[in-house]
């Protein structure tokens, strides 16, 4: 870490105000990924500046929203899928019997061994990932960070020919920028489809089960999108991870 704390605080102030661009935005990304998580002082500063950015909204005069607003929200609420729902599960546990070599999955093993007790709500998904990895024909794919993201922020995708599900796992996945969430895309011949709900890592840990027929796609892409948005194509102005998927057997 070559930045001193004065410089870092300057960046965090601009970051909280959404006012960084270009090289500063890149520096902030690096600091947020590499330094802030391990620095209590910077974590506190960031939390304070984020809170301040929320409070500044009160400087604007309150205005009664148009009467139609809440009605439109209520209508949309009925259509909005819920993020964070417990994934459906069941079929995979039955597939766990056979012993299959685990590919180079050190990071994931660490996650499964060390975090389960403190993330019990993810235990079921973790179990299913292990099961998927052991199933015949399972093909772990490393989803590589693009741009300046640290190499260890990569995720692992696991799928198997007879399992119409896809699993994503990572143990050093950075939080998205404020107001943003991650979106998974699957590509086929250059056409991208947003798959499943937006998601966030939990303290860096990413464990996702997604019901989809992976065989129909040839590439995977994770992007940062505005929370609640339904983008028609992947955004390229945030962090991204990509990988090609192996051809179906």
């Amino acid at each position, binding site marked *: 870490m070559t930045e001193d704390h004065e410089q870092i605080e300057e960046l965090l102030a601009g970051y909280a105000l959404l*006012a*960084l661009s270009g090289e500063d935005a890149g520096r902030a990304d690096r600091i947020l990924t590499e330094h802030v998580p391990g620095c209590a002082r910077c974590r506190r500063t960031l939390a304070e500046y984020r809170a*301040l950015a929320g409070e500044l909204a009160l400087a604007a005069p309150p205005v009664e929203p148009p009467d139609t607003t809440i009605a439109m929200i209520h209508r949309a609420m009925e259509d909005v899928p819920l993020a964070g729902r417990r994934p459906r599960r069941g079929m995979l546990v039955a597939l766990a019997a056979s012993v299959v070599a685990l590919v180079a999955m050190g990071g994931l093993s660490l996650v499964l061994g060390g975090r389960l007790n403190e993330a019990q709500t993810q235990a079921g998904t973790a179990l299913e990932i292990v099961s998927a990895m052991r199933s015949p024909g399972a093909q772990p794919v490393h989803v590589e960070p693009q741009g300046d993201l640290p190499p260890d922020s990569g995720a692992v995708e696991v799928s198997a020919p007879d399992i119409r599900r896809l699993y994503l796992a990572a143990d050093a996945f950075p939080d998205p920028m404020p107001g943003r969430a991650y979106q998974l895309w699957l590509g086929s011949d250059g056409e991208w489809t947003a798959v499943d709900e937006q998601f966030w890592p939990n303290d860096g840990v990413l464990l996702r089960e997604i019901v989809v027929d992976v065989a129909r796609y040839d590439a995977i892409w994770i992007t940062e999108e*505005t929370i609640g948005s339904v983008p028609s194509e992947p955004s390229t102005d945030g962090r991204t991870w990509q990988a090609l998927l192996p051809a179906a057997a």
Partner: protein
Amino acid sequence: MREDDQHDLELHRRLSGRDTEAFDELYRRYGRSAYGVALRVTSQEVIAQEVVQDAFLALWRAPEAFDAARGAFRSFFLSLVHHRAVDAVRREERLRKRTERASNLEPATGEDPAEDVVEDAYLRVRRKEVRAALTTLPAEQRNVLDMAYFGGMTQARIAEELGIPLGTVKTRTLAAMRKLRAALREE
């Protein structure tokens, strides 16, 4: 923690259980503030309404995005609204046209929002605290904060607009944020 912050936490907890009454109560508490900041940033009623809708829907869709360990719900949610408003402005590329109207953190002369809009007492109090804190900033610091926050401008753009070095914008921003933090720090 203030009593109202605790009430927000309770509403948020119920929201996580898909309680629509809790959602409506949060809308009643924060809808005006949300629309106020969205309108100030976007300057357009239609877009501001979309921003507010999107923000509340995002809250409904993913209440777990709020982490009580990281601060008050109010800050989280209004920050979310502000973020979406800035995104909307930048996306629509209206920034340049709006620059001259990039508003002022202080209310217009004689404007007292509390007189026109009914809102909870604690919000009215906090609003006064925020405004009072802003008045303690030197004009040049308040200006860069204003251009970034309500103008939706990047620091590089502010430097360009004001004809000053980027480093000066950063320094002024940091000084302003430090002063506001000290003034608004809650027990």
